[in-house]
C-alpha cells in the first residue's frame, strides 16, 4: 500500500494518475492530506496554534477554554485596523497596534503567576520599545502613561479612583522609561485593579437590601479598620505585623467595629459605591512608592 510521507516538498495534484501500479484512491487521499497540512502551514495556522498552546502551558489558567477564546479574540488586534484621519496613518496606526499588542501580552497571565507575568511584561516592553520609521528605540513616558490609562479603563476602574495612582507612577512625556520602572508600574496597576474588584465585592456585602448605597457608619468603620491594620504594619515588621493584622481583620473584631458604629449616636447617612471605592483605593495608593 502507498505509504504517506509527511514531508513531501510540493503539493501533489489529486488528478495525477501517472503511476498506474498504485491504487489511485489512497494516492488521492494522501495528496489531499498533504495539501491540507501544507495549506495550514502556509497560512500560518500551525505556528499560531503552537504559540497558543505554549501560552496556555505557560499561564496554566484555571479556565483554559476561556483563556484560548480571549487569546484568539485578541489576535484580531494584530491585523491592521482601518487608518485614522489627520496624522499620517502609518505612525498613529503603528502606535495603536503596539499598544494593543502590549496589552494583549500583559493580560495573558495573572499577576500572581509572577514568572509568567514578568515574562509577558518583558515581551510587552520590547514590543513598545521597538523602533519605528520615525520612532527612536525605547519606551517613552507618553506611551507608558497611555498604556496605564488603557489598562485601568479596560479594567473598569472608575477614573477618579485610579487618578491618584497615575499621578504617582506616571512618567513625563519625554522621559525614557527603564524596564524596572515599567515592570513595577504594570504590577501596581494590575494589583490595584484586583484591589478595586475586592473593594467592590466588599461594598456589595455592606450595601443595604434593594438600595445601592451602604450605611456610612458601617462603611467608614470597615475602612478605618483596614487603615489601622495597614498602619500597624508600618510600625512593626516581620511576623508580628501579620499576627496584628490577622487579629484586627478577623471576623470578631470587624463585627465589633461594625456593631459599635451602628450603635453610635451619629445618624445614618448613605455612602455611594464610588465614594467607598475612592476611599478604599486611597489606602492602597498611599503605600505605592512614587516614581522618582
Amino acid at each position: 500500500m502507498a505509504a504517506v510521507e509527511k514531508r513531501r516538498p510540493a503539493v501533489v495534484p489529486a488528478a495525477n494518475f501517472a503511476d498506474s501500479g498504485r491504487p489511485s484512491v489512497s494516492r488521492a487521499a494522501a495528496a489531499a492530506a498533504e495539501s491540507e497540512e501544507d495549506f495550514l502551514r502556509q497560512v500560518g495556522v500551525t505556528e499560531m496554534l503552537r504559540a497558543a498552546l505554549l501560552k496556555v502551558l505557560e499561564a496554566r489558567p484555571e479556565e483554559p477554554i476561556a483563556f484560548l477564546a480571549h487569546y484568539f479574540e485578541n489576535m484580531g488586534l494584530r491585523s491592521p485596523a482601518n487608518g485614522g484621519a489627520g496624522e499620517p496613518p502609518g505612525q498613529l496606526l503603528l502606535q495603536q497596534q503596539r499598544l494593543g499588542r502590549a496589552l494583549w501580552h500583559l493580560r495573558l497571565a495573572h499577576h500572581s503567576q509572577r514568572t509568567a507575568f514578568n515574562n509577558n511584561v518583558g515581551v510587552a516592553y520590547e514590543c513598545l520599545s521597538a523602533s519605528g520609521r520615525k520612532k527612536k528605540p525605547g519606551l517613552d513616558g507618553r506611551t507608558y502613561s497611555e498604556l496605564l490609562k488603557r489598562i485601568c479603563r479596560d479594567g473598569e476602574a472608575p477614573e477618579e479612583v485610579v487618578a491618584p495612582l497615575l499621578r504617582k507612577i506616571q512618567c513625563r512625556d519625554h522621559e525614557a522609561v527603564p524596564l524596572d520602572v515599567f515592570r513595577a508600574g504594570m504590577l501596581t496597576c494590575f494589583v490595584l485593579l484586583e484591589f478595586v474588584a475586592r473593594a467592590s465585592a466588599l461594598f456589595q456585602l455592606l450595601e443595604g437590601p434593594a438600595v445601592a448605597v451602604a450605611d456610612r457608619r458601617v462603611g467608614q468603620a470597615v475602612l478605618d479598620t483596614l487603615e489601622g491594620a495597614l498602619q500597624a504594619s508600618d510600625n512593626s515588621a516581620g511576623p508580628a505585623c501579620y499576627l496584628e493584622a490577622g487579629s484586627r481583620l478577623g471576623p470578631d473584631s470587624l463585627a465589633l467595629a461594625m456593631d459599635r458604629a451602628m450603635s453610635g449616636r451619629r445618624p445614618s447617612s448613605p455612602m455611594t459605591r464610588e465614594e467607598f471605592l475612592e476611599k478604599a483605593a486611597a489606602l492602597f495608593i498611599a503605600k505605592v512608592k512614587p516614581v522618582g
Partner: protein
Amino acid sequence: MSRVSVPCHVKGTVALQVGDVRTSHGRPGVLVIDVTFPSVAPFELQEITFKNYYTAFLSIRVRQHTSMHTPAKWVTCLRDYCLMPDPHSEEGAQEYVSLFKHQSPSMTFPKWLSHPGPCEQPVPLLEGLPDPSRVSSEVQQMWALTEMIRASHTSARIGRFDVDGCYDLNLLSYT
C-alpha cells in the same frame, strides 16, 4: 444526686512559646494547664470552679474515652471564653469562676455552656449587619494586596534631576 468533688491532679503550667525560650524576651501569652483524674471510676463532670488570676481568655479541651475499642479523642468544650473584658484592666482579673455543664441530648459529648460570668460577651452577628466572616475575607485580601505592593518597591530610578519638581535648565545649572 448530690455533687461530689472529684479528686484531680493539676499539673504545673507549660508555656507555649514560639522561638528559643532562652533568648526570647518577655513572657509568653499562652499557658497550658493539664488536669488529670487519677480515680478510674467514670463520672459525669458537672462543674468546674476556679479562681482566676489575670487570665483573659480560657479554652478547655477534654480527652474522652467513649468506649474500650475506640481511641480517646480530644474535644474542645470551651473556646476563648472571655474572663477579662479588658486584659489591661482589673475587671475579672481575680474573680471566682464557675463553669457548668449543660447536657445536650443530641450530642455524644457534653456541650458546655458558659455560666453568665463577670463579663458580657459581644454578640457577633446582629440582625441587619453584614456577615462578618465574608467581610473579613474581603478585607484581608485587600490588606494582603496592599502589603504585597508595599513590599515590592523597585530601587530603579528614572533619573530625574528635579529642583522642586521643576525641569528649568537655568535653575538646575545653579545647583
